[in-house]
């Protein structure tokens, strides 16, 4: 990965490669197991009760009658086949992909410890930093696995300066998140409705102080 000043990930070559978190896929497993167990139990109960002199339950009777009457050319056969294929493909997809995309691995802190930062936590931490930049209004932050997209509005001041300040603040926060693979930042600013251009005289009278808004907003 190349090193770009404007927010490309900086990776130290010696760091051990953190393993991605593989989801245990509990939800689909529980669903499959429940459905399977319930279906087996229902049929088993009915078959055994018939074996001991009972009568087949109405649902099994209706189901078998329907199946006996069904022809391959029925539209229902095509629909059932499509549903089976889609569900089957989906389960196979679930089984072979890692999942847990919303948990970004952090740099291993040593020992047998693995840590993951939720995507929403990344977004909240970055948003707080973005809102602290003087002149920045709303900041919408969308975190993907490799990239963070920041859309901010400028309420006052020079948009290019606000963007530079946002880039600086967000890059430093991003690097402090401790992520194993810091996401790339894509920052875009646009003036919001109330934005008025900074008064030129003020900028000139400020002289050497090239960013009066930034200077004024520092705490």
């Amino acid at each position, binding site marked *: 990965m190349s090193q770009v000043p404007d927010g490309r990930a900086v990776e130290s070559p010696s760091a051990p490669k953190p393993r991605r978190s593989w989801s245990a896929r509990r939800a689909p497993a529980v669903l499959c197991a429940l459905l399977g167990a319930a279906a087996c139990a229902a049929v088993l109960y009915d078959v055994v009760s018939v074996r001991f002199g009972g009568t087949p339950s109405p649902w099994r009777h209706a189901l078998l009658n329907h199946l006996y009457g069904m022809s391959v050319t029925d539209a229902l056969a095509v629909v059932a086949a499509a549903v089976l294929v889609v569900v089957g493909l989906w389960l196979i997809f679930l089984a072979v992909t890692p999942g847990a995309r919303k948990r970004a691995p952090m740099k291993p802190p040593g020992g047998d410890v693995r840590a993951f930062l939720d995507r929403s936590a990344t977004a909240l931490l970055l948003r*707080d930093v973005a809102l602290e930049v003087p002149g920045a209004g709303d900041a919408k932050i969308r975190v993907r696995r490799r990239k963070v997209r920041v859309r901010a509005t400028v309420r006052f001041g020079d948009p290019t300066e606000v963007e530079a300040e946002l880039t600086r603040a967000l890059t430093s926060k991003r690097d*402090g998140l401790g992520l194993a693979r810091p996401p790339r930042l894509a920052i875009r600013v646009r003036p919001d409705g109330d934005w008025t251009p900074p008064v030129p005289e003020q900028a000139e009278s400020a002289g050497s102080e090239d960013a009066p808004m930034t200077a004024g907003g520092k705490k």
Partner: protein
Amino acid sequence: MRNVLNRLLIVVIGLVLLGGGGWLGVNALVARDEVSWQLPSWWRGPRAYDHLVDRAALDRMRDQGWWAPVVISGLAVLFLLFLFWLLAQGRSRGPASLLLRRSGGRLRRGALESAVTAEAETLPGVAGARARLTMKKRGQRRFRARMTVVLEPYAEPGPVLDGLVHGPLKDAGSSTGFGIPATTVRMRATGHRGRRVR
């Protein structure tokens, strides 16, 4: 390992559904003349206007003496397999308390969990924490922890993680004599309104 088991069984079920659906779909499409595929000679399936289930063949099988026991035992085995798979989704965390060999004291798992949680919550940047420990007899290799940490606004996750490892986790390791547990940490943040600079 549950992770591998789940994925293996899910892929098997997926393949069964895909195979069944594919077989049914190909038969249906060919029978409806919607495609003009030439099915290979080994293909078995109902031809056009056949019933999907051959009732006569099914009735012949039912009359065999082996049919009922085979169906019943097959269903029973399948049911037990599904049941065990379902039960395997619960996490076993070992006995509720352990005898510590070195000191001879008895350590409750819940007590250690709340100690780890309380120590984690004193770290700067941590709003809340939850620790779940797994301790099995014959110790060290089975000492595991799962932690969820809720970060405060403006927290620094990297230093928080280092603080966890060198604080509560290290202390849990030294107090049990098992060493730092194999831990998975998940960091969350609570939603809050952003503070804007005027």
